[in-house]
């Protein structure tokens, strides 16, 4: 899946987690802008992992702060 298709899929997956209806751009941060707690992060990561059939380890998650970085990482992890 290329970056555009990956971005489209992730946009779909993030919707049920974006309870405050915040406008998400590539620069949106998970901790700061979306104010997600660790439990929400875990559920969201699990949803992405299951949909793309990938592992995003905690080590990799530590490098992902923005929505754009997440799309980059998932695009790359699909090989």
């Amino acid at each position, binding site marked *: 899946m290329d970056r555009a298709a990956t971005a489209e899929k992730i946009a779909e997956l993030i919707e049920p987690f974006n309870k405050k209806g915040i406008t998400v751009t590539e620069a949106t941060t998970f901790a700061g802008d979306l104010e997600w*707690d*660790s*439990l929400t992060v875990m559920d969201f990561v699990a949803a992405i*992992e*299951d949909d793309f059939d990938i*592992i995003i*380890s*905690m*080590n*990799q998650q530590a490098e992902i702060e923005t929505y754009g970085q997440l799309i980059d990482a998932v695009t790359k992890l699909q090989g």
Partner: protein
Amino acid sequence: MTDLFSKFDPLIEQRRALLAGGVEDPFNLVMERVISPTVAVCNGRETILLGTYNYMGMTFDPDVIASGKQALDDFGSGTTGSRVLNGTYAGHRACEEALKEFYGMDHAMVFSTGYQANLGIISTIAGKGDYIILDIDSHASIWDGCKMGDAEVVPFKHNDIEAMEKRLKRVPEGAGKLVVLEGVYSMLGDIAPLKEMIRIAKENGAMVLVDEAHSMGFIGPNGRGVAEDQGCLEDVDFVIGTFSKSVGTVGGFCVSNHPKFEIMRLVCRPYVFTASLPPSVVHTAATSIRKLMHAGNKRAHLWENSKTLHKGLRDKGFQLGTSEAQSAIIAVIMPDLERGAAMWEALLHEGLYVNLARPPATPAGMTLLRCSLCAEHSADQVQTIIGMFERAGKAVGII
């Protein structure tokens, strides 16, 4: 200059607000005198202890105390050295022999605390390029062991067998895999479906480490823990445990049948670079472990206590962490931290000590009053405790 402490400001403010309401500080209690495994004097009040990990009540066992006193006389107050230098005394070996017999395993390694056992074993065996698959509700010492090592860390939803299996199957081919589980999860007192999880872990070529800190001495026909109870102990590669719960002193250990296990003593930094346990501690531990092998009656009484308290609190209308008693921990779920602290204080005034647990130690941001039972609690004490909960719960408006 940036004040490095400014990151703690939110917590400082939360504490200030809580204590400004006049509530007694739940995290600053002093036990002035300890009368027995189940009774102490706190703030001048005689208090029933329902928040210790003294599950088997071994802290005042006469044989345990006698062996500790003897060791003080014979070996002195401390070893002043590492296990691999001058810090291995006869007592450390006796402790490891007792553990090997207790678990029926080939190797045992005693650490200075349970925290260090997890920290040391996990960070040492899972290295760069390896994968650790672990339950998201794992104890802090497991998480810290993961952080200290260089492995890729992959958590899965609590006790979710399918989530664990999916992640195991996604690990790149050829990579080393370690699955980390706990027998009893200490916040809610729930147990893991170890048999099924370990079967799947083995099918997928993973080694398995199980932390049995809260089950040792109590759960399983011989008190070896949840894995023994579910008939899968022989498939566990590493059991981690502690002396600071059922054994009744302090220290940690790992037991294993791995043929190369002894090399851990040279490569595991939290084992090498710290002083070994004092002689009195290892002698009390060895005596206690041997007595726990034959403690079937105490185990049965502790189960009765746990089931009675669980049913009693549920019948009074409290919301509990598990639908039935699964361990010696009964977690009472509080609506929020403020009312949790108020309830904690009301119970203390009744003469009952329980543990107040709050995030980040708890799952899902919950505030819990954690009750942990002891085999030395009498049936009468358990009824008294239920009455105290009822009065405090009504006073605070929780039931």
